[in-house]
């Protein structure tokens, strides 16, 4: 059957071709290069690099940061999405825009802002110093920078989801005597749980890969480096640095791959039942 909306075959192939070319150049080829360079000097070198103190410390730091940032931003995202979709108040549109600021601002700027606030010469720096609290070049600073960069991810996905669902079920629960807590856990949360998890995955992926903000807040203190920072550190070092950098980068790549698989599994689980329902 001929359909009026079907584009010319040439247009179709051209568009698909362009997309494929992009994927090869920007995704497939780099992945190949990372794996090739990482393993160029042999498996033994590869594993001894990963066993080095600096590598292990970087992996640990990255996982710790993600474990701290993702729950915090999930809580924030759910609160923000709830507030925006369930309450009417002035400046709501502005609030939604504010939530998205980290997507528009360069992470480096975000890092600099925190450095200006918490750094030795910053607004709160002297006070923090007096009380023996270290933010800059320490775990709190890295968490702050990462949290700033990743905080829109959960909220941004949830707001349209919750808006489309409306609040009829919540109203029904209220008339049945549910209090706020019961309302959230028994009615609202089950409706958004996959959306929350999806946001957490995106947030996690971004948190593990963050470089700009963290590079300013962590500096080059040896034990306070996340994986992206350590990759750069290896890259700049002399002694077979390039191969070491790629070895560690391959671990980051592996973490991304795991994230991607979880995301696809989630989408599959999510889409397949609804597709079935259509038939």
């Amino acid at each position, binding site marked *: 059957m001929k359909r009026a909306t079907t584009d010319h075959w040439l247009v179709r192939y051209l568009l698909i071709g362009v997309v494929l070319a992009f994927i090869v150049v920007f995704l497939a080829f780099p992945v190949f290069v990372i794996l090739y360079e990482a393993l160029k000097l042999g498996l033994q070198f590869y594993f001894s690099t990963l066993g080095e103190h600096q590598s292990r410390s970087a992996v640990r730091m990255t996982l710790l940061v993600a474990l701290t940032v993702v729950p915090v931003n999930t809580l924030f995202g759910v609160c923000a999405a709830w507030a925006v979709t369930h309450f009417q108040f002035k400046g709501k549109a502005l609030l939604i825009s504010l939530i998205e600021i980290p997507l528009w601002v360069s992470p480096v700027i975000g890092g600099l802002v925190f450095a200006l606030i918490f750094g030795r010469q910053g607004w709160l720096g002297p006070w923090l110093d007096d009380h023996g609290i270290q933010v800059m070049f320490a775990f709190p600073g890295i968490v702050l920078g990462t949290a700033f960069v990743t905080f829109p991810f959960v909220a941004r996905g949830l707001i349209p989801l919750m808006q489309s669902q409306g609040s*009829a*079920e919540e*109203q*029904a*629960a*209220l*008339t*049945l*005597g*549910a*209090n706020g807590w*019961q309302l959230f856990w*028994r*009615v609202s949360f*089950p*409706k958004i749980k996959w959306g929350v998890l999806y946001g957490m995955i995106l947030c996690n992926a971004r948190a593990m890969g963050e470089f700009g903000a963290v590079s300013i807040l962590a500096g080059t203190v040896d034990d306070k480096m996340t994986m992206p920072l350590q990759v750069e550190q290896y890259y700049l070092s002399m002694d077979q640095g390039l191969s070491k950098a790629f070895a560690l980068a391959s671990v980051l790549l592996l973490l991304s791959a795991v994230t991607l698989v979880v995301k696809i599994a989630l989408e599959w689980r999510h889409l397949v039942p609804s597709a079935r*329902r259509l038939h």
Partner: protein
Amino acid sequence: MSVAVQNITKSFGAFPALYDVSLEVKTGELLALLGPSGSGKTTLLRIIAGLELPDSGLVSFAGEDVTDKSAYERKAGFVFQHYALFQHMNVFENIAFGLRVLPRRKRPNREAVTKRVGDLLQLIQLEGYEKRLPSQLSGGQRQRVALARALAIEPRVLLLDEPFGALDAKVRKDLRKWLRHFHERTHLTSLFVTHDQDEAFELADRVVVFNQGRIQQIGSPDDLRKNPQNDFVREFLEV
């Protein structure tokens, strides 16, 4: 239980939804709020349930002022036009919801919940549907489940917002008949909103005619037919 509203006024921004509305629903009465869309009848129902707050005026249940009580304290049985069933819960869990959220000391045990839900399923003639999800039910079945869910908490008043509005003609007639029988058996004080005068006249003991946020006339179906008090009522009822 009787329900009374006194001098209720409510506006949404610049739009006046209700203007100085007073009304008493007697114990055991089945009352229809009838009017064109936008006349304020649903808003009044939601104010009685506690889902909207009036700008001024009082709501009382059995003589007790409940104006400042929230919806979850009032626990009026509410049936929504589009059912508002919990999509992720099966029929059993939907109906049991109101029992499961009771404070611990009032919460019935497992057998009591099963018994209560079973009785309600029998009442709405959906035995054997416990495990179905709302998405696996027809519109009429969904609305019956919504009714059972509202009845599970043994409400003192039943509020129905266009309960048959989303159903096709045949199902609508059956469900109407069912509701009439149910009311004759239980005499649960009930209010329902409709824009369909046949529905109002067939079901209700008394009908309240609304237009533009004001009550135009209150009376039995016979009364309204014989003595329409103003032009709006006469034209709306086509008498």
